[in-house]
């Protein structure tokens, strides 16, 4: 019966009806093609490519990314498509982000004539595929590795009209935690003893970049960084020596930029065995549902922030919509940050396609994307023309800061969306 | 009366080359037989078949009426058929004592282990002196003694010795020949393969000559010792 429904749905969708939703459900590879026979080629089903780590160590990220793109496509098709096009997804597995595999995946998408745009949460560690897509004039909307993206695009933005990042520069990660602490100190909610900070870094580009920025910014704001430790990238099962050093330095503020969920759980738990009176900031990890599930009440008091993912506030209507749709499709309202990226990317592409009207005019579509303003679950996406990254800031994509309170994340900044305010962590009592 | 051990029409080979081509022989209780024959004509292969290390392609091997062919080397050993292999590297990184212990572990009769060990040390005092040395560092002759010692520790009913005197100094060879004669008393039967024809003929009752994978001659050891044909076959013309 399913083949019946899909053929009927594709003809229906080409007629602009909403009935197409039944086929877009879970079928990502898509049988496709049958609609092309009775519709003009330019108005048939087109493919959106996805690069994602569907297997391997970070498979859960890859699946998140796939869900986001799938959901967006399902919604678009349900709404009757865009400019006469309906969409299907073609996912390429980038496994462990090795260059050969990424090159092959990129090539597969580029050689598939029905692919008109490619989205990704992240595809490679270096984002080198940007060059391949730019050379082929393919629309490529990505999320992670913003420093690499800015580095590649920034040299000659004109060469990359079709490359855009829905994630803003990570620069704010390097300032946000410091600014907040200064605010609390000024407001008297928290009294630092000597404005000392301790930074733990994991040996990878992301963590190192943020730690470097933080260190500089701490210094600029009159803090002293009393200690720094770098741990190897990968699972760290014992933080004893790092914590010993922290205890001996007894800083006001501890920042751990090792974003890996399990490392941050272990770090916190081992810290709590004998805590110092320090604020505890953990980079990114607590955003993951798995972190909260595991930490539960022991996470109370922990600070973290996020540039990706939905704005965790009912005050943002797009968030509510996305959460509902996600709940309906996948049975959870905890939208994976990777899903937010690809969901937004597909939607932004669709809007640009609507404007241009022809999926093959990729450069025009790219330019339309660059000029677009999109209110989305993660904030308002406007692109910086120099780096092709989304702009950061409270009116654009905000840096959301959270504190765990009563085993739940509470958004404490920016003011605009905040649902609560900072309290002293329990270990200060 | 059926023979204690009998080999009937045995064929065996390695890959495509056939080594044994229909061997027939038998061993009665209380008997010692010798296998003679030029190098590389299948004696060792025959013995490997008996102890279950090598699967023959045709024929049968029976021990006290029951076929040994389906049995694993361990099961053959449990029936009391113990083989001392030719030119073994032994267990190079185990001590002499451990090697002997290993041999003893194969002996179902625990209480016999201690006396057996004494017996082995009596036979080869050198092993006792060297009992803490690694087997891999023994001299060629010492290794040969240890190999026999391991076999004896298993408490054999039928002992099969494959070239036990290979590389032994004359004196030890004589001692070993004496030891083999002594052993005969405690064993139910003995099979001896050795290059030293003299020794074989002196230590056994009957002999078989194996050539090109077949028994070409058999006879009484005492008579064989005089046989002109034997002399010409093996001693060459000195």
């Amino acid at each position, binding site marked *: 019966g399913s083949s019946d429904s899909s053929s009927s749905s594709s003809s229906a969708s080409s007629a602009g009806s909403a009935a197409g939703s039944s086929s877009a459900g879970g079928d990502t590879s898509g049988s496709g093609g049958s609609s092309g026979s009775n519709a003009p080629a330019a108005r048939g089903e087109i493919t959106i490519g996805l690069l994602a780590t569907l297997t391997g*160590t970070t498979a859960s990220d890859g699946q998140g990314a796939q869900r986001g793109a799938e959901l967006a496509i399902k919604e678009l098709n349900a709404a009757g498509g865009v400019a006469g096009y309906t969409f299907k997804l073609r996912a390429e597995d980038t496994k462990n982000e090795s260059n050969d595999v990424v090159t092959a995946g990129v090539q597969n998408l580029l050689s598939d004539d029905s692919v008109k745009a490619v989205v990704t949460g992240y595809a490679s560690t270096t984002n080198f595929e940007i060059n391949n897509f730019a050379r082929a004039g393919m629309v490529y909307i990505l999320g992670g590795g913003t420093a690499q993206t800015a580095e590649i695009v920034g040299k000659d933005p004109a060469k990359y009209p079709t490359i855009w990042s829905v994630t803003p520069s990570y620069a704010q990660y390097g300032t946000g935690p410091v600014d907040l602490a200064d605010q609390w100190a000024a407001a008297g909610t928290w009294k630092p003893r000597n404005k000392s900070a301790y930074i733990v870094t994991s040996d990878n580009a992301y963590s190192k970049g943020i730690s470097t920025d933080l260190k500089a910014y701490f210094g600029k704001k009159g803090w002293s960084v009393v200690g720094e430790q770098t741990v190897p990238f990968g*699972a760290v099962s*014992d933080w004893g020596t790092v914590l010993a050093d922290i205890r001996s330095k007894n800083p006001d503020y501890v920042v751990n930029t090792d974003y890996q969920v399990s490392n941050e759980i272990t770090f916190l738990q081992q810290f709590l065995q004998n805590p110092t009176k320090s604020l505890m900031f953990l980079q990114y990890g607590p955003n993951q549902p798995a972190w909260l599930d595991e930490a539960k009440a022991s996470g109370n008091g922990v600070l973290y922030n996020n540039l990706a993912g939905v704005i965790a506030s009912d005050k943002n209507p797009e968030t509510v919509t996305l959460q509902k749709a996600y709940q309906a499709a996948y049975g959870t309202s905890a939208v994976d940050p990777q899903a937010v990226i690809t969901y937004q990317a597909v939607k932004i592409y669709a809007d640009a396609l609507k404007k241009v009207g022809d999926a093959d005019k990729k450069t025009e579509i790219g330019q339309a994307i660059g000029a677009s303003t999109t209110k989305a679950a993660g904030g308002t996406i406007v692109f910086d023309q120099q780096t092709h990254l989304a702009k950061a800031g409270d009116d654009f994509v905000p840096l959301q800061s959270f504190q765990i309170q009563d085993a739940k994340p509470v958004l404490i900044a920016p003011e605009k969306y905040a649902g609560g305010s900072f309290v002293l962590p329990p270990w200060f009592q | 009366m059926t023979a204690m051990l009998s080999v009937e029409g045995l064929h065996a080979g390695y890959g495509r080359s056939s080594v044994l081509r229909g061997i027939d022989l038998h061993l009665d209780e209380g008997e010692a037989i010798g296998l003679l024959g030029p190098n590389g004509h299948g004696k060792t292969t025959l013995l490997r078949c008996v102890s279950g290390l090598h699967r023959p392609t045709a024929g049968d091997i029976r021990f006290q009426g029951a076929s040994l062919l389906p049995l694993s080397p361990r099961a053959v050993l449990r029936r009391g058929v113990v083989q001392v292999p030719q030119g073994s590297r032994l267990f190079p990184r185990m001590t002499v004592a451990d090697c002997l212990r290993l041999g003893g572990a194969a002996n179902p009769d625990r209480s016999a282990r201690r006396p057996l060990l004494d017996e082995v040390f009596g036979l080869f005092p050198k092993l006792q002196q060297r009992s803490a040395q690694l087997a891999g560092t023994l001299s060629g002759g010492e290794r040969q003694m240890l190999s026999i010692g391991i076999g004896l520790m298993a408490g054999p009913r039928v002992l099969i010795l494959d070239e036990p005197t290979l590389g032994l100094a004359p004196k030890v060879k004589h001692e070993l020949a004496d030891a083999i004669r002594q052993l005969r008393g405690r064993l139910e039967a003995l099979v001896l393969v050795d290059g030293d024809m003299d020794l074989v003929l002196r230590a056994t009752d009957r002999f078989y000559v194996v050539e090109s994978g077949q028994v070409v001659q058999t006879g009484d050891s005492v008579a064989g010792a005089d046989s002109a044909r034997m002399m010409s076959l093996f001693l060459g013309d000195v």
Partner: protein
Amino acid sequence: MDAFAAILLSGLVLGSLYGLMASGLSLMWSTLGVFNFGHGVLLALGAYFAWTFTEQLDLPVALAAVLAVVVLAVVGVVYEIALVRPFIRRENGAMLVMVATLAVTALVQSVIQLLWGPQLRRVPQFTSASVSLSGATVSGNQLVALVAAPVLVGALFLVLKRSPIGIAVRALEQNRDHARLVGIRPAAVYVFVVVIACVLAAFAGVLLAGIQFMTPTMGDDPLLRAFVVLAFGGTASLGGTLAGAYLIGLLEAATTYFFGLSWSPVLLFLAMIVVLLLRPEGLIRQRTA
């Protein structure tokens, strides 16, 4: 003083974890002469089974761990029959087994992903007990590892040193034909060894799954670490392996404290070369027979 205690405890905890992982590997190497690349994925498999028993069947962790170990013991039998037995007697048997275990690693990792999905998961810790030593604390599974590693590996060491099965294992490795002639059944010994290795891997997996999140590839990192441990401590004996594990653990703890952890492989390699230059017989005294 605090720092010293922290480094010591940390080093011991890491050493115990590494020791548990490396000893299974070293056991198979020193007895069968093969390198088991599948050790990491066996560890993951143990963890996933333990997770299923705790979460799906609601069993207490200790029971789940025991069940997981039992399941892995059964897996070990299959593993031996499918991956070791068919190859080990062949020419280049060691390399064939190595490649077969590599292939099965990829296979089982994918199967885990297909069966359990890629979500991050954790197994509850065995205990919430903790022990402090002048400010440094070990708790939960770390504590269990600290105690279990020397006990388990020590027990295994004794078994291999003293028991008949231990002698049989060594004999088989050194001379297969002669070992069979003294009544050793290679199949039984191989199964024994592989099962023990699997059991050790499963136990390490359950411990680790309480400390960090589980992924199908969770065993890769420990496997690589065990590699380094073996390079340093040698595979000649379990004692050496355990010593190597503690050495690496302490070195890691100390280098983290003083330089940051990333430098320990570099230091290790340098140490290795220095050792080699100082000790002409090599890292591990090898006897040429």
